[in-house]
């Protein structure tokens, strides 16, 4: 499958993995620290992120400037989604929505 630029901006989240996307979705309604992220993602998507996976994804997102770390509270660092992060998430969700709609339509047409 080739790359697709849909005009609304390139979907840079296509290659970052599910954990990173779930973290961005979880941070979309406000800053959270690691434990709160794990709990929220479990509730939101039924996915239990391992702590190693979580920190790997947080580092990757921070390097891409899609999230930023806030000053530590006690020993916990809250993370916040950045403006480019929110924009990237919007593009990705739009793309997922289009694929999802196409899939539903094809299922309907196929009569399955």
């Amino acid at each position, binding site marked *: 499958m080739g790359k697709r630029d849909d005009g609304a901006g390139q979907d840079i989240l296509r290659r970052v993995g599910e954990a990173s996307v779930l973290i961005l979705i979880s941070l979309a309604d406000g800053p959270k*620290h*690691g*434990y709160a992220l*794990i709990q929220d993602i479990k509730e939101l998507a039924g996915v239990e992120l*391992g*702590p*190693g*996976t*979580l*920190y*790997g994804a947080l*580092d990757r997102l921070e390097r891409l400037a899609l999230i930023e770390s806030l000053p*530590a509270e*006690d*020993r*916990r*660092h809250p993370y916040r989604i950045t403006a480019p992060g929110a924009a990237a998430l919007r593009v990705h969700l739009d793309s997922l929505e289009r694929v999802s709609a196409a899939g539903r339509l094809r299922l309907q047409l196929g009569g399955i």
Partner: protein
Amino acid sequence: MNDPRASRLVEAALRCYPARWRRRHADEAAELATLLIRDGTPARSIAWSYLVGAAREWLTPRPGRRLSAVACALLVAVCSLGVSVALLASTQPARAVVSPSRPPAPAHCPPRSASHAADAVPATGHPQPVNRGPGHVRPC
């Protein structure tokens, strides 16, 4: 972490991360492990997750880390695997002594002597046809 064993296990896993990562996340990661263990997550699975994360952290190329360092880490991993395989394979000759590849001679065969072995080659020097019909008994 109240359980000292769980605490040691997680701390050992966290020590596997690069120093740069530990400076940034170690305290927070230990705290997170404490909270997850309190919630009932097994310490082993937390430690395993951190171990996998540490391996990924070492193997992911970073701008500050040269590719040769990553190659070295990979080489060390491959060598360790090679040593393990070699150690496993070294038990093979010992087994070979216990059960030699040649099966024991059938009961009807007389004991072999040096002269018998020399006679094994036909006098003509030509290969002899072997008849393996029903009721064939393996020759001595």
